[in-house]
Structure formats: C-alpha cells, structure tokens
C-alpha cells in the first residue's frame, strides 16, 4: 500500500468524524460530500485507470436508486436492498460493458451517454413497477427521529465511501489495475500480448457501476422520493468528471479531493446565485479546462507534476 493510499484512507476517516459535531446542515452537506466522493472515485476506475470517457454514471445511479427503492417498498431490509442493488448493478454493467466497451473515444462517450436516456425512458414507461413520471415514494423507517435518521444515512454513505476507496486501492495495486493502465496506454498492444482486454474493461465498468448503484440506493432511501428526471439527471454523469478533472485524472486521492472542492464551490454558488447556478457551473467548467491545465494535461505524460507519481498507481 502506497503513501497516497494511506493518505486517502486517513482523509476519509478524519472527515467522517467532522459533521457529528455540526448541526443538521453539516450532516446534509457531509452526506452529499460522501455521495460525490463515491461517484468521483467510481468514475476514476473507468475514466482514470482505463482511460474510457464514460458518461454512464447517471444511468447506474438511477438504476441503483430505483432498484433499492423498489426493494424497500417490498419490505426488504435496508442493508440487504443496497447489497442486492450493488450486485445487480455489477452484473448489468459487466454485461453492457462487454458490448459497449468495444467502442472507443467519442463513440464510447455517446453510447454511454445514451444509456442514461434509454434507462430513463424505460423507467418512465414501466409505470406499474416504478410509478413512471409520478415518481416513487420510499417508505420511512419507523420509529426513528429525523436527526437519528440523518446521522444513520451520513454513516451509511461514508461507510460506502470507505468501501469504494478500499476497492479503488485494491484495484490500483492488483493485476487488474496494471492491466487497465496498459489498456489506457495502448489497448491494441495489450490485446496482442495476450491481455484479455474485454474481461478487464468489463470488470472495471462493473466495479465502478457497483458502487455507483449502491450510492444511488442510499440516496433514494435518504431522500424518500425519486423520479426519473431527478436520478437520471445527466449532471450526475458530468459532475464526477469535473471533480476528477479538478483533482487530477487517474488518481483516487485526487478524485476525493476534487469531489470535496467541487462540493464547496457548488454549495457557494447555490447559496448565492440560485437563479443562475447551472450557468455558473458551466463558467466554472470552462475556466477549469482553460486555465487549470494540470487536470486535463495529466492524461499525457509530457508534463511533470509533483503529484504525477500518483497517476501510475
């Protein structure tokens, strides 16, 4: 385990303790931070390690939210629902990945983007199961107070974040991570020397979707009401990419830091410019890409940066 990985775990554990001393606003913000960090870390496994520009995060986030929501509605316990959701997301993404990951570059980006649209339409039309455009109500856990529940979901999300961080570390330091780095640098060559690239890419896609799905599940149980335009919002696909760009592509620690920085910026903008918040988000994205080049250039090995070491995890 490398120093950067230890720093990653330490950061997760330290920040997990913080909101307990704050009020309910800090708890809400803390839960959002956990959610964003899970999404950014998961995206890093596909987009950072393997170098595939995936826009499918929103698809699996929505899938997870609906799967957990429906299971909870059937009376399945919370932990079991989320675990089942994660397994289902892994299987679904692995299967879809085996097909979609044959595409590269722009074509993969579009295919993953359209996955979100397809899932949303399917959920919209399966009115009997999902409530369609009316949305889905998720039952409240009986007998607990509002604050207890907020604390419970905060720890649920941060527990998931810890698991995701551990997963990213294990992937990075295993044969899988090495294979993904090979695929990022030269897929054709990796394939020629006998690396099963399809299997590796599908595994990475599945693992990424697995934690995204679980995060969607916890989110659904936390907010108690979801509808297709909320959980299949394309912004859930784009935000993790922006976070990873802020922190530096391909580094799990960078993704985590990027997620927290991004949340801070977003919250400031939301509080002060509610009418124009997504426009300012756009300004932020443009400024970031134009004037903070380490995020976008860390893809190439031309630039030497102090944290470049972290990239080749």
């Amino acid at each position, binding site marked *: 385990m490398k120093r950067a990985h230890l720093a990653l775990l330490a950061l997760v554990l330290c920040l997990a303790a913080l909101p307990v001393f704050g009020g309910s606003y800090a708890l809400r913000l803390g839960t959002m931070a956990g959610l964003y960090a899970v999404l950014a870390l998961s995206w890093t496994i596909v987009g950072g390690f393997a170098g595939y*520009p995936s826009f499918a995060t929103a698809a699996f986030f929505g899938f997870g939210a609906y799967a957990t929501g429906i299971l909870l509605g059937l009376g399945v316990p919370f932990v079991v629902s989320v675990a089942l959701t994660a397994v289902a997301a892994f299987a679904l993404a692995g299967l879809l990945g085996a097909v979609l990951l044959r595409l590269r570059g*722009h074509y993969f980006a579009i*295919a993953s983007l359209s996955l979100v649209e397809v899932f949303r*339409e399917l959920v919209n039309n399966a009115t009997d199961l999902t409530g369609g455009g009316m949305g889905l109500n998720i039952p409240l856990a009986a007998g607990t107070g509002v604050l207890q529940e907020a604390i419970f979901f905060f720890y649920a999300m941060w527990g998931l974040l810890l698991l995701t961080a551990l997963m990213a570390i294990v992937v990075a330091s295993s044969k899988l991570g090495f294979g993904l780095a090979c695929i990022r640098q030269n897929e054709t060559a990796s394939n020629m020397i006998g690396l099963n690239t399809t299997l590796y890419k599908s595994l990475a896609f599945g693992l990424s979707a697995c934690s995204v799905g679980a995060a969607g599940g916890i989110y659904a149980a936390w907010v108690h009401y979801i509808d297709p335009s909320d959980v299949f919002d394309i912004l859930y696909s784009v935000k993790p990419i922006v976070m990873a760009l802020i922190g530096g*592509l391909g580094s799990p620690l960078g993704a985590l830091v990027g997620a927290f920085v991004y949340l801070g910026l977003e919250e400031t903008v939301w509080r002060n410019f509610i009418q*124009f918040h997504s*426009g300012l988000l*756009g300004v932020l994205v443009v400024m970031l890409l134009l004037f903070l080049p380490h995020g976008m250039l860390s893809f190439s090995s031309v630039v030497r940066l102090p944290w470049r070491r972290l990239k080749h995890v």
Partner: protein
Amino acid sequence: MLAVQVLINALVLGCLYACIAIGFSLVWGVLNVINLIHGSMIVLGAYLAWGLYQAFGVPPWYVLVAAAPAFFVLGYGIQRLILNRVITAPVLVTLTLTFGLDLILNNAMIYLFKADYRKLTLVPPMGSISVMGVVVPVDRLIATAAALVLTGLLYLIMRRSRIGRAIVAVRLDRDAAVLMGVNISNIYAIAFGLGAALAGCAGVLMAMIFPISALTASTYLGKAFVVCVLGGLGSVSGALAGGLLLALIEGVGATFIGPAHATTLSFALLIVFLIVRPQGLVGRKGFE
C-alpha cells in the same frame, strides 16, 4: 392510407432532422469535437424567430436571412476564442468544455425566457393540404422545403467554394492540408461557424412547427446524435439518409408500438448501429 400518411410524415420530419443534424455532423467530422451546445443553439434560433415575429411580425422564412450570419459570427467567435485552445486535447476535455458552454447558454435562456413553452402562431394560419385522405400542414411543407434548400446550400458550399474545399481537405488529411498552406485555426473556426449557422436556421424552422423552450435543447441534441451515427459522420447525404431513417423508425414505432417508446427505440437503434456499423449508412470518408 395510414401507411402512406406515416410515410409522408416521415419524409417531412426526416428532412427537418437532417437539417438539425447537419451542422453537428460538420463540426464532429471536421474538428473531431462533439458539440454539445448544438441543441441550445437550435433553441436560440427558435427564440429569435419567435421574438422577431412577436415584436415586428417578421415571418420566420425572412428571419433565416438574418439568423445565418448572426449565428455564424457567434460560432466563429466561440471556436476562435475558446475551443481552439484545447482542440488537440483528449476527447474528454473538448466534450466537457462544450458541455460547460452549453450549461451557460441554456441557463441564460431559462433565466431570460423562463421554462414556459412558447408557440409561434402564424396569423392567419397556413392551413393544410389534403389529398385522398392524406393530410399535410402547409407550414410543415414550407419548413421542409427550407430545410432541403439549406442542406443543398451546404452541399454546394462544400463542393464548389474555395473555403469548402479547404474544409474537406482538412477533414481528409489535416497535416497535408497544413503543408498546402491552409490556415487550420481559421478553417476550424469557419467550420464551427457554419455548424452554428445551420443550427440557428434549423431553430428558426423548428419554431414554425414545434413549441419552443430551453428544455427541448437536449431532445434536439439527441436527435442530432442519432442521425449522425445512423447516416455516417461528416457527410450531407449521410445526414439526409440518417434523418429519413430515424423519422421513419420513429413514425412506424409510434404508430404500431406506441408513442411512449419512440425515444427508447431510437436510442436502442443508436447503440445497435454504434456496435454493428459505426461508420454509418453512407460511410465516413470525406465531407461531400
């Protein structure tokens, strides 16, 4: 009679889809940039037509003359000032950058015009032509004809003009074009400007037929994606073929399966095409 009506509708709608997609296809084909602002530019064009008609009673087909140069300048500026800086960066960067620009434009439109749907209602109404039970509204026919004219115009620019040949040259072999003395960043900006001009004009035509709202931008963008992938990248004939095929499949799907599944059908088709025939119906060699 139903089959003929579905076919006619698909023909009319297909030409409009081609017009929506052609500028998007040009930018993607020549610059290798997926231009996510395209949908919002279409809506901006629609608002332009709506505003001019509400304020001065200018009919949409006259607005086309003003919209084309205005959007060209807008697109040229965006490419020159912003996109050219990152044009050589990986896919993820250009894609995320145009997404950021789209957020700005889209949010600005929602802020200015609110999220309400608006409709450009021509007074007096144009009515419709009915031949043996097949009904076609006149305004749709005019919009279709205009879309065909715009598409033909782009074809002529690409085939006959010096700048068009330069764009094709850059598309076919960027390095060779540089060696022949083509100013790459200028050609990129002109191609992006042309794409924006076509988006604006398509928006003006859309205003005649469909309700206008900034929220519909993503729908137009989705159509442009599908048409591009179906027809093949960076070709006028490809956009026409893709537009007609998409409209036909949507029409048949909506009639025989149900309108709720039209989007799923078109996106499922997109994924199938991406996997089976990523070069599209017409192939993707050169912009002709």
